[in-house]
C-alpha cells in the first residue's frame, strides 16, 4: 500500500522499469558538475604534475622524457636546499606558536565572564577576516625601520628599530610571527568550542574531590581537548606551507639571499620567473611527499594519544 503511494504519479507506476532507470541515473546527474570539476581541476592536474616532473618541456617540440634528471638537478641547486631547510623551520617554529599558544588564551577566555568572553571572541576573530595581503602591508609598515610605528616609539627612548625584514638572520622569524598573528585567534576559537562542549558535571565532581585548577586542566581539560589539538596540529602544517606564500611574496620576495623562501614559493618562482616547468613540478611533488610523510608520522604519534570523549 505505502509502496504504491510513494511511487507517485500514475505514469511512473505504469512503467516501473523506466522509473527505476531514471532513479539510477539521478545521483550521477546531481554529482556530474562536482565530479567534472574535480576531475579537470584537481585530479588531472595532479597526474599532469607528475608527468611534467619527469620531462623536459620544450617550445614547439615534443616533450622529452628525462627520468629523474629534474630531481637530480634540484638536489644540486642551492636554492632548493635553502627552501627545503626553511620549510622545516617554518613548520617547526610555527607549530608551537599556532598550536600551543592558543590553548591558554582559550582557557582564559573561557574563564572570563560571559560578556567579556563574547567581546574577546569577536576580537580574536578579526585577523581571520583580514586578507593576508592586508596583514602583510600592515606589518611591513609597523616594522619599517625608518618610518614605521615601532621606530616612532623606540626613537624617543634612544633605541634604534632593527631592519627585521631585510636582515637575513631575522626575516624568516618575522614572517613566522606575522603568520602566527593571523591564525592564533582562530585556533583559540577552535579550542574554545572544544572547551564549551566539556560537561560541567565532570569539572564540578573533580572540584568536589578537592582537585586544583592546575590538576583539572592537566587531567581533564587537555585530554578532552586532544582531538581539537590533533586537528589544529594537522591543519597548521598545511596552512603554514601554503598561506605563508603571501607574506613571503609581499614582505621579502623570498630574500634576502633565499633566507625566507620555502618550497611552495620556490616552485612558484621556478614556474613564473625562471620558466623551468620541470623543476617547479618536481619541487611541488617533493613538497607533497614530505607533507604526506609528516601527516602519516603525526597520525601515528598523536593518534594513539587522542581521547575521543
Amino acid at each position, binding site marked *: 500500500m*505505502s509502496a504504491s503511494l510513494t511511487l507517485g504519479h500514475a505514469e511512473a507506476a505504469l512503467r516501473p522499469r523506466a522509473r527505476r532507470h531514471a532513479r539510477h541515473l539521478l545521483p550521477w546527474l546531481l554529482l556530474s558538475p562536482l565530479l567534472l570539476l574535480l576531475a579537470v581541476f584537481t585530479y588531472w592536474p595532479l597526474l599532469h604534475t607528475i608527468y611534467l616532473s619527469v620531462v623536459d618541456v620544450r617550445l614547439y617540440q615534443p616533450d622529452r622524457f628525462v627520468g629523474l634528471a629534474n630531481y637530480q638537478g634540484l638536489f644540486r641547486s642551492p636554492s632548493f636546499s635553502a627552501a627545503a631547510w626553511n620549510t622545516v623551520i617554518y613548520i617547526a617554529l610555527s607549530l608551537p606558536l599556532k598550536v600551543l599558544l592558543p590553548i591558554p588564551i582559550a582557557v582564559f577566555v573561557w574563564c572570563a565572564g560571559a560578556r567579556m568572553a563574547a567581546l574577546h571572541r569577536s576580537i580574536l576573530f578579526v585577523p581571520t577576516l583580514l586578507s593576508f595581503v592586508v596583514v602583510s602591508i600592515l606589518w611591513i609598515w609597523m616594522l619599517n625601520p625608518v618610518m614605521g610605528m615601532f621606530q616612532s616609539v623606540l626613537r624617543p627612548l634612544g633605541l634604534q628599530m632593527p631592519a627585521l625584514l631585510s636582515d637575513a638572520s631575522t626575516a624568516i622569524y618575522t614572517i613566522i610571527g606575522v603568520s602566527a598573528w593571523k591564525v592564533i585567534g582562530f585556533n583559540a576559537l577552535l579550542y574554545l568550542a572544544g572547551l564549551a562542549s566539556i560537561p560541567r558535571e565532570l569539572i564540578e565532581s573533580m572540584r568536589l574531590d578537592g582537585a586544583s585548577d592546575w590538576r583539572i586542566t592537566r587531567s581533564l581539560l587537555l585530554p578532552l581537548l586532544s582531538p581539537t589539538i590533533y586537528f589544529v596540529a594537522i591543519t597548521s602544517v598545511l596552512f603554514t606551507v601554503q598561506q605563508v606564500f603571501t607574506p613571503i611574496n609581499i614582505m621579502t620576495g623570498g630574500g634576502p639571499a633565499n633566507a625566507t623562501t620555502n618550497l611552495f614559493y620556490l616552485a612558484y618562482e621556478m614556474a613564473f620567473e625562471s620558466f623551468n616547468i620541470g623543476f617547479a613540478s618536481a619541487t611541488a611533488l617533493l613538497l607533497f611527499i614530505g607533507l604526506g610523510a609528516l601527516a602519516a608520522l603525526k597520525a601515528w604519534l598523536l593518534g594513539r594519544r587522542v581521547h575521543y570523549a
Partner: protein
Amino acid sequence: MRNAAPLTLTPPWRAIGNIVLFIATLSIVVPLLLVIATSLKPPTEIHGGLPWPQEPTLGNYGDVFDKIPLGLYFWNSAATTALRVGGQLAVALLAAYAFARFEFRGRDLLFALTLGAMMLPHSLTFLPTYLMISWLGWFDSWWGLIVPNLAAPVGVFLLRQHMLAFPRDLLDAAAIDGAGPWRALWLVILPNIQPALAAIGILLFIDCWNEYFWPLIITESQNAMTVQIGIRRFLDAERGDELGPLMAGVVLVSLPAMAVFLWFQRRILETFVSAGLKG
C-alpha cells in the same frame, strides 16, 4: 558558556590570564586602529607627529581612487566572488544531495575523492591548472578566476552533514504527497537548510574575497585584477609618500568581510568553528 566561570582561578592565575588576554587584544586592536587613524591623516601629518590625526580628513579615500583604478578592482572582485560563491553553492548542494540521499555504486569512493581534494594543496596542482587556463584562453579573465574554483569540497561536506541530519519523516511525507526527488530538494530540503547554506556562503565569500595566490598568477590587467592584487601593486608602486591613500585602500579592501562579519557575527563564529572542527 551559560554558567559562571568554569574554573575558579586563584588570584595569581587570574592576574596572568588578564595579562595574557590584554596583550592578545592589544596586539590585534592597536595595529588596526593605527591603520584607520593613518588613513584619516592629511599628508602633512603622515610622517612623525601623533599616532592619531589632529585634523581628520577623508581625502585619502578619494585619492586612492585617483592613484589606482580601485573601482574597477572592486567590480572584478565583487562580480567574480558573487558568481564563484553562487556556483560553488549550487554545485555543492546538488552533490551533497546525491551523497546524502541516494544509494549508488561507488558512492563512498567518490565521497572519499571529494574529501581528498580538500587535502591536495594548491601548490601541487597550480602549474597544470595554469597551463590549462592559458590554453583555454581564460588567462586574465573572469572565467579563469571563477571556473577552476567552482568545486568546494568543504561545502559538499558540510551540506551533506546537514542533509543527513534532516528528519526522514518530512521527506517521506513529501514522497507520499507525490513529490519527486527534485521537488523534495527544492521545496522541502532547501528551505530548511537555508541557514546552513547562508553560513557556508559567507565562509566561501571571505575565502574568495581574500584570495591572493590564484589571482596573482592568473590576472595581469584591469580586465580581471582583484582588489587584493590591486592593493599589492599599489604597495609596490608607492615609495613611502602615499602612505595615506595606501592605508585608505587597505581599509576599503577589508571592509566587505568586516561588514559581513558584523552582520552575521554569531552565525559566522559558529560556522567557522564547526567547519574547522569537522573539516
